[in-house]
């Protein structure tokens, strides 16, 4: 109790020269029961989320995989080999990666300029446009499925990378434009004004001063647009019906369907597909996370 009250305890340090007494805060020590309870809950939550992945990993490397989690009965890499020989998965992966990366680049470019404009420029009906963008975000894409199909068909955008990229990007844009507007709002105008006075044009100041500081926002926009284009199912179903342009989510669907009725379901192959599907997501997540943290630490200090 002595330490807790903070009264100086007569010791060599305090008695010495009338220094400020060293008040030691008692270490907060949770009871072992509390420790156990907390970790038990953690464990359950983790198990809940990790079990499907456990199945994926075990099934992907098992030639005789079933719908149940089991230690690989016949360990093999053949599931992955089958993917590329029988399912043309190389092509499928390329399609998905290409569409996701192209969408990401287009989105980052568009949100950088649109977010900046909404944050900094004065133009007529700016409020209407700003809130209109937000309104677009509230529209569920499934509601616009039919018009998207019709429009894409008339414009010749079906069964093309261009159509997929343009429409995926359009769906991503409203939210990310708002996100970027927020990032630009948080960057002091003085920085830009200083660059103008130092002799830069508005556009160059944007690229040299503002965009580097908006890096974390652009990183988030890039990550989110990549991931959602990568995971897009509905649009692909609406827009694509040639095998050449199939993306990974659609390949899944096909794998289940073609195998389902006639032969036994190839769980191993499906699991292998899923493992390869998750991999880029992991890479993007960890890559973007590090970038975002670093960016945030650099840009918010000294503003």
């Amino acid at each position, binding site marked *: 109790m002595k330490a807790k009250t903070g009264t100086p305890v007569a010791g060599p340090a305090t008695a010495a020269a009338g220094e400020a007494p060293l008040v030691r805060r008692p270490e907060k020590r949770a009871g072992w029961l509390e420790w156990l309870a907390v970790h038990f809950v953690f464990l359950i939550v983790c198990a809940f989320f990790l079990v499907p992945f456990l199945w994926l990993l075990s099934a992907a490397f098992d030639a005789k995989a079933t719908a149940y989690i089991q230690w690989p009965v016949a360990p093999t890499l053949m599931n992955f080999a089958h993917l590329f020989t029988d399912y043309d998965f190389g092509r499928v992966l390329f399609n998905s990666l290409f569409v996701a990366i192209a969408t990401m680049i287009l989105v980052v470019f568009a949100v950088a300029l649109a977010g900046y404009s909404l944050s900094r420029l004065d133009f007529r009906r700016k409020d209407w446009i700003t809130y209109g963008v937000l309104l677009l975000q509230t529209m569920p894409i499934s509601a616009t499925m039919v018009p998207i199909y019709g429009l894409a068909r008339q414009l010749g955008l079906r069964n093309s990378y261009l159509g997929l990229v343009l429409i995926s990007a359009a769906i991503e844009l409203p939210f990310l434009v708002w996100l970027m507007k927020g990032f630009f709002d948080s960057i*002091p105008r*003085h*920085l830009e*004004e*200083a*660059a*103008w*006075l*130092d*002799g*830069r*044009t508005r556009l160059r100041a944007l690229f040299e*001063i503002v965009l*580097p*500081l908006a890096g974390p926002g652009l990183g988030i926009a890039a990550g989110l647009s990549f991931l959602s284009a990568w995971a897009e199912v509905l649009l692909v179903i609406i827009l694509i019906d040639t095998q050449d342009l199939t993306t990974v989510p659609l390949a899944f669907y096909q794998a289940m369907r073609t195998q389902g009725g006639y032969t036994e379901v190839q769980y191993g192959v499906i699991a292998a597909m899923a493992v390869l599907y998750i991999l880029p997501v992991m890479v993007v997540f960890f890559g973007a996370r590090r970038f975002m943290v670093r960016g945030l630490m*650099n*840009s918010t*200090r*000294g*503003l």
Partner: protein
Amino acid sequence: MQFDNVWKLFAAQAESAAAVRGLSLDITDRELLVILGPSGCGKTTALRMVAGLEEPDRGDIRIGGKSVVGLEPKDRDVALVFQSYALYPHLSAQENIRYPLKVRGLSRAEQDRKVARVADMLGIGRLLPRRPGQLSGGEQQRVALARAIVREPRVFLMDEPLSNLDAKLRVHTRTELKTLQRELGTTMVFVTHDQAEAMSLANRIAVLNAGELQQIGTPDEVYDHPANVFVAEFIGSPPMNLLKATRDGGDLVVAGGWRLPAPKRGSAIDSAGTELTVGLRPEGVQIVAGGQPAEVVAVEPFGSEVIIDVRVNGEAIKVRAAPDVRPEPGRKVGLRVDPAAVRVFDNSSGDALN
């Protein structure tokens, strides 16, 4: 550099509430002009119009005889030091200072030479590799100053650059800045709300209130002969004592019966009616034996001087006295006024009459 009847209205502002109203200033070459005024008086807007960050709605701004209205900020060749310093946070101090030179397309060797010289001048050599986030407020301020100086602009614009520094550093930097400006010989327009800063820095002070120029003059002129009641109250710490007065023949009667000698007759005072306002600087009043009776209310010692609050028939007056004058509160003392220190203002317009 001149302001010629410059007006600036922000959106939704009535003409009577314009940010800057008919401002005309003639700033001499190599001068250090301080624009002084309370917050919201339009001083920063005036500065930003010189920089090209705002455009005047009416009137003209000329630098070196040529109008700069409509020119992009980049084409005006003026340097602005912001209150927030506005250092680029993602660049090191060195890159910050180098930036305007890089924009200008100077050779790398020339850039290095100029950055090194300015860093040496301001004693910030060891800060160069650091980023703004790793610098203290005072250090950031120096880097911002270096970035302005390295450009060798036609005009320096300073938007309260010292207000984010602690008191001691502020006074120190103030002196340094004044010396620096004299050595560089570049015209400087310095905006502040701190009257002490204005007095210590300025060659001339332009006092602004509610978007209008109140007075322009040397620190001594502005202090000794304020053009109106606003300037009288704004400049000086403590400010000028302002007392309601009635004219009675050759005398001015204040505070219920204290008769002061009116300064030279036959001037505007005579035609201004009998109701006037008298201004007395705290050092224009002395505590003497005899004289006008007054009661001491409080004594504020400041080391080098003492401010004594007295009451004359209920009217509060501040008196500046030598540090050894320490009357007890409640004591009766006598007051005397130096006739040359009496300022008289018109009651309705607030303008000075002598």
